């Protein structure tokens, strides 16, 4: 079992600022947005909650042990976070393709693809396109996945789940590993994500995924 300091990759004698810095760097690395649509998204979110609880443990410990009272600098206590992040797949598991989502989550990609291909053209909605894109990403067919993810966003521009996957893919094509989407444009579509982004900044970043 790793100590919270080992998880954050800092020494127990590190200053509060160093710990915050290390924590932010890790959050940036394992942020769910970097793994949107990835078959490893569940592992990234596990890593994320491990990092969060390590950080919470350390700040709590230091708050208790320091006589002056450690200021958490805007981060809420663990309980106010409203439970850990659960991954994108779970968000709308009540849709018409919930069984296909379950197969994808279980890693049964070829079964999921077969079921998807059996859906008649008339009922292929935004979710179908999103899931088809996900299946292709999971198979490693990265280029084939793009048109499906794009189509899902076109059909349902306000769905955060679809946008996150498509924007992640486009950002990595453009900027490579760690590439981020720039939220500079201000059409109604990006507004939603801009608000989320602004919210991140208000919370001194990092924990925007809990909204």
């Amino acid at each position, binding site marked *: 079992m790793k100590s919270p300091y080992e998880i954050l990759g800092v020494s127990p004698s590190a200053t509060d600022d160093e710990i915050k810095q290390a924590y932010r760097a890790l959050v940036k*690395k394992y942020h769910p947005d*970097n793994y949107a649509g990835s078959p490893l998204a569940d592992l990234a979110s596990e890593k994320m909650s491990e990092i969060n609880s390590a950080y919470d443990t350390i700040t709590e410990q230091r708050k208790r042990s320091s006589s002056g009272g450690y200021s958490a600098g805007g981060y809420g206590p663990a309980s106010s976070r409203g439970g850990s992040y659960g991954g994108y797949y779970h968000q709308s598991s009540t849709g018409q393709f919930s069984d296909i989502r379950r197969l994808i989550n279980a890693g049964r990609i070829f079964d999921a693809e077969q079921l998807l291909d059996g859906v008649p053209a008339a009922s292929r909605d935004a979710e179908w396109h999103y899931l088809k894109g996900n299946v292709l990403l999971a198979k*490693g067919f*990265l*280029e084939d996945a793009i048109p499906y993810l794009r189509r899902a966003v076109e059909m349902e521009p306000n769905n955060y789940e679809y946008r996150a996957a498509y924007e992640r893919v486009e950002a990595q094509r453009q900027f*490579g*590993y760690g590439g981020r989407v720039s939220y500079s444009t201000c059409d109604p579509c990006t507004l939603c994500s801009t608000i989320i982004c602004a919210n991140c900044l208000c919370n001194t970043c990092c924990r925007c995924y809990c909204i």
Partner: protein
Amino acid sequence: MFGYIKPLEPQLKVCELESYKAVYCGVCRGLSKRFGPAARCTLSYDFTFIAMLHAAINDSAPVFTPQRCPLNPFKKRPHLDYCDSVEFSCEMAILMLREKCADNVADSSFLPYLGWSILTPVIENISSDVEKKHPDASRIAREMTEAQKKAEALGSEAKIDICCDPTASALGDIYSLMSKDKTTKRILKRMGYMLGRYMYLCDAIDDFDDDVKKNQFNPLSNYPDDSEFDAVLRFTAAEAANAYALLDIKYFKEILDNIMFMGLDATAHSLIERRKKRHEKSI
């Protein structure tokens, strides 16, 4: 098709470069020990990377010993000692060489054909004992060559993802053999798939203009826009790096980070730039 997975050297610290070289030398020595001195010729960056990754995710700490080497007999240089990691990478190198041989015999012109067909029985002989030890890996490698032939037979129908799939799947399966832990295997499989895809794509870009000139098959010739090649590569490298980031790395972290987060992109970029320069010259 080998030699694309390497660090961005200027960004390595001197001590990191030293240990990278020591692993490289260790693999070279390992090849010679396992398969005879001639096997040293098969040394490549990719299998140095495999040895390093194998060592990084397993528990036993790597040990370095200063030793002389026939290529540099006057100065002792540190070598990674012969261990499971070195052995694994050497054995995989021979299996891949066997497939490269089979592939080259199938589609070379007369002179190289002669060379490769003389080599084939030798390599088959050496690799037969690896085949016994790693029947899975050997089967994976053979299937890869078969599937590759099928994909290429599609000709103008072959889309880029289908062409990459055989090599990528094979590498993914081989990478997943490095660990026994279920989650680690899953990450390694994804990472290996993406690195295999990356290697295949790099090779395709490198050969693109030659293949077009000679009217030979190239997986990228069906891709609509050649200015997009770098985006395809960047995305593939990023997916490999995303998987790598989830591994629990115990040794060589700085070097592996360098390769995965900087080296892949840098190599891809230099390939694209080289191609651009060739184009400018020809105009």
